[in-house]
């Protein structure tokens, strides 16, 4: 099977084995430009592991992951980021000792070398970009607050903001609305709908209502393999999916 060049991301025969246990087993899927792909599946299906493999956090045993015709499996994490892949973790991962402004500033795509960081200037372009992103993720009033004092939902937004400022072509979000209040959930859905417009996104999510809202296509994983793939309506009608995941 040859990768079609118009796919943004090509994952083929991806396998990772931890001491003989295959968490992801011969997985193949393709993500197009501007597509919003949602990955669902029961616990332990390997959803998070797939994201870990794509962004280089876990090394694959075999297979290939091509992004814009570059093989990601051979690249370091920071090189993958520079290629245009952004990753949000499941638990909000922000720098608690720094302010919201500083959190966003560190993610600003400039001065990433040692000497670049030493000579980095907080110029007007940086400040206005940070202001803009902070407004997008509802944190414009909290720029001077230390990240440790944010609520759970605000930390999730901050981390999404940190990804947005990198302006990645492929955004990977691991359960972005988990642990949020109903009001926060609604705001986040609105936020995600806005930011997925001009980029490709892979989202892991359990909330079916939310998935229906945003998904272009859905991939159902089970035991490290693709169980079903297609539109939301298609997978919801698939008897195999009903059996292992959605329930009768």
């Amino acid at each position, binding site marked *: 099977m040859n990768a079609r060049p118009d796919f943004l991301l090509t994952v083929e025969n991806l396998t990772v084995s931890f001491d003989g246990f295959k968490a992801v087993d011969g997985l193949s899927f393709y993500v197009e430009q501007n597509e919003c792909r949602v990955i669902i599946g029961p616990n332990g299906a390997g959803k998070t592991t797939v994201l870990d493999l794509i*962004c280089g*956090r876990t090394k694959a045993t075999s297979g290939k992951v091509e992004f814009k015709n570059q093989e990601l499996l051979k690249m*370091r*994490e*920071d090189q993958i*980021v*520079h290629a245009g892949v*952004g*990753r949000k*973790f499941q638990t909000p*991962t*922000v*720098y*608690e*000792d*720094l*302010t919201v*402004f*500083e*959190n966003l*500033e*560190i*993610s600003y*795509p400039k*001065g*990433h*070398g*040692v000497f670049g*960081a*030493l*000579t*980095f*200037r*907080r110029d007007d372009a940086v*400040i206005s970009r940070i202001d803009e992103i902070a407004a997008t993720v509802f944190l414009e009033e909290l720029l*001077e607050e*230390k990240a440790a004092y944010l609520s759970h939902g605000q930390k999730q937004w901050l*981390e999404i903001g*940190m990804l947005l400022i*990198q302006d990645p072509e492929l955004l990977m979000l691991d359960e972005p609305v988990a642990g949020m209040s109903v009001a926060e959930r609604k705001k986040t859905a609105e936020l995600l709908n806005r930011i997925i417009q001009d980029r490709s996104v892979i989202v892991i999510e359990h909330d079916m209502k939310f998935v229906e809202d945003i998904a272009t296509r859905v991939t159902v994983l089970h035991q490290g393999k693709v169980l079903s793939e297609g539109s939301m309506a298609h997978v919801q009608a698939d008897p195999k999916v009903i059996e292992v995941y959605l329930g009768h």
Partner: protein
Amino acid sequence: MFLNKNRFFSNTDLIGFALLALLIFVMLPVGLDVFRLNLFGKYLTYAFVAIGLVLCWGAGGILSLGQGVFFGLGGYCMAMFLKLEASSPEATKIQSTPGIPDFMDWNQIAEIPFWWQPFHSLTFSLVAVIIIPVIFAFIIGVAMFRRRVGGVYFAIITQAIAAILTILIIGQQGYTGGVNGITDLRTLKGWDIRTDDAKVILYFVNGGLLFACLFIAQIIRKSKLGRILIAMRDQEDRVRFSGYDVANFKIFVFCAGAAFAAVGGAMFTLQVGFMSPSFVGIVPSIEMVIFCAVGGRLSIIGAVYGALLVNLAKTTFSELFPELWLLGLGGLFIAVVLAFPNGLAGIYKDYVEPRIALIFKRKMHIDEDVSKYDPLEAAAD
């Protein structure tokens, strides 16, 4: 307001620097005799190491238990130059081979080994004081941080390196002076470093270099690099997935810490007049971490006070209770870590600063706005 400029010194920092300068350049020289001043000069050489540890450990989360290695290498580079100068054929004419360092003669070595030769040059030696420890730190850094060795494992490995280097120096007696070290150093380009005048001048040179290092450390802390170090300490993966090659930053800060330690080591040799393996090994390396912890591992100024106070206590108590001193030092370390994890600087910040703020309420109100954006101070909360 704050967003438009990235100030390297907040007003609180400026007060701290000014008070320290007052102590080092005015109060100590005026109040102490030359012998005591020289002793404080020796204590301050450890402050260089402690400042490096604030960057590596306090900010970057990299605990090195082998800073004595870099202190020692810097000190030995300086000592080799001074020893060669002290070993003129006239001064050593009673040896079987005049014109070589005395310990080489005692070990039946008849000529100066090739790797000692460049240390005839002062310029080379001064460059070597910094470059050799930095290259060594770079090699350790690349080997460890590229493989993602960190935390306790890194601490243990640096400790092992300190032990290995000590054994190497002691074992190669003919080339290094062995367990006695390189002793009987006399002149620097003909200038006698043992006189009282020289000791006072060296004290001030030492103080000047210390402030140069403090200044560099402050710039590193206040640049984006300083904030990345804090970010790395808390969420290394997030930094990596924000597009940074984390290992490079660790290597950089470890090399910077090594360079500071090396300058301290060279100044130690000049002021104390010898260098020996007892400043390289595990015990001195751990003591250096204690200086930093007592002073406050998040504060470069605190680290200087920590080095001064612990050494002063060491001199005083080790004379009074020689057997109990080490236990006392260990107890002090445990007490600080348990009760005051941010050391003297933390105590100052939590108890003294709020009172000062009350007194100067109106004035400090403006300063606080600025100091809010000091990530290290913020981290000390």
